[in-house]
């Protein structure tokens, strides 16, 4: 998992470098990701991809994050040389299991039913693998950090001693 996180971080850094805007958060669009996935033949097909992006969002739903952010998290795990192929199979297993538990397409169920189907597979190994990937990708990711106002590393600006440490304005006077 650590390696996945590293891979992702390197990816973000390179995207930022390419965009020429240090500090900017660049979310690759769905189009670009579809292209990347299509260029990895045999990994996962379009239906699996769409369902798994949906599942990733339902695992850790943040309205402020686009589908592209969730898709990118899965893509980064898939691109891992060591575990990428295993992860592709785990996505397919999850997709198959969700489909089997749905009358029709899982994607077409209402939200409550989609979550119910996910709960029925949450003790499976593949589910844990996907959950771990999404949790690490989202919460170690700059898109979420930017959304909630967490700056990440602070060493380079000298820590918070002169940058807001100890500031709190709502504590009651009367204790």
């Amino acid at each position: 998992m650590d390696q996945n996180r590293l891979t992702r971080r390197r990816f973000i850094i390179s995207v930022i470098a390419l965009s020429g805007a240090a500090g900017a958060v660049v979310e690759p669009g769905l189009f670009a990701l579809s292209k990347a996935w299509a260029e990895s033949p045999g990994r996962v097909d379009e239906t699996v991809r769409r369902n798994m992006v949906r599942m990733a969002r339902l695992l850790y739903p943040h309205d402020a994050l686009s589908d592209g952010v969730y898709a990118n998290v899965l893509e980064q795990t898939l691109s891992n040389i060591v575990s990428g192929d295993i992860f592709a199979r785990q996505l397919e297993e999850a997709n198959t299991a969700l489909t089997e538990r749905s009358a029709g397409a899982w994607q077409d169920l209402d939200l409550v039913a989609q979550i119910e189907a996910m709960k029925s597979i949450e003790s499976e190994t593949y589910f844990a693998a996907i959950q771990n990937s999404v949790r690490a990708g989202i919460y170690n990711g700059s898109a979420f950090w930017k959304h909630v106002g967490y700056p990440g590393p602070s060493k380079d600006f000298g820590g918070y001693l002169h940058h807001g440490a100890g500031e709190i304005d709502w504590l009651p006077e009367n204790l």
Partner: protein
Amino acid sequence: MSRRYEFDDDSVVVVVGSGAGGGTVSNELAQKGVDVVCLEAGNRLSLADVVNDAAVMDGKMGWHDKRLGAPAWLCKTVGGTTMRWSGITPRFRDFEFRPRSTYAELHGTNLIDWPLTLEELSPYYDKAEAKMGISGTHGTPPSFETSNYKVLKAGGQRVGYQQITSERSAINSVTRDGRPACQQIGFCWSGCAVGAKWSTLYTEIPKAEMTDHFELRTGAMALKIRHDNNGKVRSVVYVDSGGVVHEQKARAVCVAGNVVETTRLLHNSNSNLFPEGLGNSTGHLGRNYMRHVMSLTLAIMPGEVNFHRGARQSGIILDEQRHDDSRGFAGGYIIETVADQPYNIAAMIGGWGKETADFLENYTRVAGCWITGEDPPEAHNRITFHATERDAYGLPVPVLEYSHHANSVAMRQHAAQQCETIYKSLGAKRVESRPDVGGGCHNMGVARMSERPADGVTNRWGRLHEMPNLFVSDGSLFPSSAAPNPTLTIVALAIRQAEHIADAMARREL
């Protein structure tokens, strides 16, 4: 700068490990003119190697050789777990040296009193605090009050706690001892980038090197301690990072590899004289492994806290560090602020779906604390070795067998309720407690000190009962865990032990 010793120089004390115990005992001996060779399995980092990235730093300093069973959060690097610790340094209280006398018999436990008292250790606590620059002691000011601490303090006052303090941290509160004051960087668990937090990497080790009585060998993994026909230790066998095996002769040996490696080295040094391993003729080696009772509480507060802005642990409440039967459990606990980055908060809260995500949406409004509480010794909580699995050194893989005593479960339930009340008293919107978060960062027992040889592995100086010149110098010595974070007591015991060893050498008894 550093002295070099010959492999057949049998005048040296060999210290295994360079963390809180090993680094301290090494420097204390060297300062007294005793020649020391310190073997450290890991590499030597510099401050420039420290980055604000938990995964990268875990790769640089974590202990990743294969282990089975309960996870332990240890380090393989010069400085050991002093690179990773938070610096919280309360003293034991008097009753915590006498758990058997104070708690009477706790079902299923193996309680004994310490073979020393608070009165006896107090001068060494003083020396340890002065050495480490503990905030609020010996003229050093209290630590900076982070917003997370201010929340804990306000809530603690509301529920009636009296002993709330930002003192007792081994992170410099002022520039001191050639190291800067804390810059509130907030990644303490990944190594301190400015060296404000006491670590033997940049205190004890370089100070020992300045004496000309000390040599540090990094990448040196101890494999076996050898002794003569009379049971007197004569050498330590180790493998260097190039795979070459060496044998360093020794006048005495101090083992400080943290509980897992200390147990493994003594166990693997078995011989005709000691078939069950060194110090194990009464069967206590590796047993009575203790980890501290831990419970985490995180709360979404009515306003911004931004607990990432500052030291991970910046203040404590000591009121519950007492024995009081009416609470429904024996022993005490300490409430301590804790903060972490979003990923770890998600991992600690656990689960998935809207509830977990909503908690993380409120990241900047989260305040947090956890407790460390006394974990009673149980014989079946122990470190054993796998019958067939071997690690990269060819050594049997350690297995950490650990379960929670009913006393610990009762304690952490009480603690969770207290911590939740603290935050609710300030209008917390949502409060979440999780048991056993952080388990495995405090590791104690396995070679405990005892008055009677039948009750433990080591005597009141940390010397093996059954060997004249083999010492244990880390948290393995603890007969009980008490409530406080263990490092201050490890350092105090190491200072005391070094004094004992140097005196014994001067008297030609060692």
